[in-house]
């Protein structure tokens, strides 16, 4: 695992070099005044000390509207447009970890999803360790953390004078090798500073008891808490659409193409049969499904919860439901 140091003065030249190979996205302030991943360069300066983006970078890999196949002359065909090389600089570790989780579904070896695979292969992920935690953050409770590099090709830690890079994949190692002239050796002091910064952010996190959630949720399938949650839930898809790990989708036809779009288990139509039968007929079952899927079924299938602890579902729920509260109550 190679570690290198990039001075802040060399950040722009480095991004410019990546820009020669493909599109570069980096944190900047958008028209609405929010820090978001924006195509680089922009007139506005880069922002490195933001909390997190409103949206996870999921749409780079699972676009909200993705054409799978085209209909041409009565035939269903695949029109492979070339996927451009893309660099995502500055996504937070929770969102990068979410990609590692999505890989387990879409690159499961048994049956890879070619559309996801192509975008994942052509996209280089450079994560940026967190500068501060939000009250809704709980990454450390789901096996991640503010310095988690899983899912990223490179993890950067912003230091006083520059960025400490840590390679997380062969692709990341390659990037560091190519940029050797812009990089310096990582000094012990820099490594110490990085570790301290990450520790500092970790200390801001409030732990959530999720580690043994699979077992706990197993016994709680019939808990009255699901009914309480279902009664409150409005049945919108905000939590899952903004979730970096939620990936359920729909496939529908337009006159000239077959399209994949995001879908959500909170919607009654999601499981509705043509006969009118619905295996999850009320918000209670649907709410339980979402939480069970993340914290029990995923643990059974993959050994890890399908949650990166980013807290977007908590920050954005129109009725301020908090899955941490429900997890706590289920465990109580």
């Amino acid at each position, binding site marked *: 695992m190679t570690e290198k140091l990039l001075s802040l003065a060399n950040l722009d030249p480095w991004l410019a070099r990546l820009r020669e190979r493909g599109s570069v996205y980096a944190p900047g302030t958008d028209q*609405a*005044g*929010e820090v978001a991943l924006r195509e680089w360069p922009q007139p506005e300066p880069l922002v490195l*000390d*933001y*909390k997190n983006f*409103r*949206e996870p970078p999921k749409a780079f890999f699972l676009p*909200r*509207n993705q054409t799978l196949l085209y209909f041409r002359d009565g035939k269903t065909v695949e029109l492979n447009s070339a996927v451009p090389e893309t660099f995502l600089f500055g996504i937070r570790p929770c969102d990068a970890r979410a990609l590692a989780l999505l890989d387990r579904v879409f690159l499961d070896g048994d049956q890879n999803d070619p559309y996801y695979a192509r975008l994942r292969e052509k996209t280089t992920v450079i994560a940026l360790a967190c500068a*501060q935690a*939000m*009250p*809704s953050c709980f990454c450390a409770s789901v096996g991640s953390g503010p310095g988690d590099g899983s899912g990223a090709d490179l993890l950067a830690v912003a230091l006083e004078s520059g960025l400490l890079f840590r390679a997380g994949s062969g692709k990341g190692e390659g990037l560091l090798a190519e940029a050797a002239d812009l990089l310096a050796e990582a000094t012990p002091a820099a490594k110490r500073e990085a570790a301290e910064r990450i520790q500092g952010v970790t200390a*801001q996190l409030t732990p959530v008891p999720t580690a043994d959630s699979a077992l706990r949720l197993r016994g709680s399938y019939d808990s009255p808490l699901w009914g*309480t949650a279902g*009664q*409150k839930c*409005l*049945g*919108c*898809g*905000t939590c899952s*659409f*903004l979730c970096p790990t939620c990936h359920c989708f*729909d496939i*529908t036809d*337009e006159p000239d193409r077959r*399209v994949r*779009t*995001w*879908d*959500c288990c909170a*919607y009654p*139509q999601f499981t509705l049969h043509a006969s009118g039968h619905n295996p999850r007929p009320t918000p209670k079952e649907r709410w339980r499904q979402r939480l069970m899927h993340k914290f029990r079924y995923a643990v059974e299938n993959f050994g890890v919860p399908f949650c990166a602890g980013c807290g977007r579902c*908590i*920050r*954005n729920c*129109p*009725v*301020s*439901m*908090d899955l*941490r*509260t429900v997890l706590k109550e289920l465990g109580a």
Partner: protein
Amino acid sequence: MAESRQLEAQLRETAEKLLREKNVSLFVGYEKASLPFRTTPLLLTKTEEAPRLVWNPFCNANLSVYLPRLFLAPADARAAKAAPAPPRVGVVLKGCDSRAVAVLLQEKQVRRENLVLVGIHCPGIVDRRKAEKALGEHQALGAGEDGGGNIRVVVEDGTESTLRREDVLADACLECRSPAPALHDILLGAPGEAARTGTARPGTARTRTAEFESRPLEARWAGFQEVIARCIRCNACRQACPLCYCKTCIFEQNRPRWIGPGTDPSDLALYHLIRAFHLAGRCTECGACERACPMGIDVRLLARKLSAEVEDLYGYRPGESVEATPVLSSFALDDPQDFVTEP
């Protein structure tokens, strides 16, 4: 402020009494949420839970959204026989929320005799996004109201700061003309609080619409496209709206399918146009849709215009009276029809 503390105590007493005397079996109010600038709905069935109820400037949801689903008719006669009797429900309502209940009554989605409406004179509520933005890179750990109705915030380093009320009130509240619940069985609080703090700017809605309308056609279209481009079709605006109660929404009908499920530009435009038109003459301007939107979209752009049109053409404001005939259900020979043009 002291007044909302007092209101909160009255509210808890009211709910406790309604439940204890079995006037209601369910009471819908707000309780503290896990994050600052927010509350979360509380659906109470036990008297001992009444102390969890809160009343503060963060009581954002329009709670009437929970009512229609409590009165859904069973699918068939057999199910009707087995179904429990519809509950008697107490519900906390701000001015705009009570107007939504009036529309639900007009449209026969709820049963008046099963409702106990607890109105509260509303001083306006905080748009959490405005508050969060006002703090910049600081983040709130806690928030409350000070004596002047401004918002006191404790941030991550333990320091306190104050956000001015007019800077963080929700748009719908700044534009509000009737903060008093028109329809209620029990009324808490005193009128005029909004006027006292000098934040109400009821003309704002029309000013905003006029500003938009003054742009050339292309700019208006571009403006609309820009507004909706961020939409992710999560349905939060629709689900937060008490008047979007259709059992099968047009967006989900599939025989025929009127609109695709994704974010294709034409589907996005259709989604927002259809919603605006389905709420024309019905929208009570609570702004729940706007505050529910996770993407910060001005989802009321078209609704504001349509509300003004309905009021100007027909002198009708939805929800002001249950007895009034809904504007789109009535026809008078002298209705204005200047907008009807030759093809």
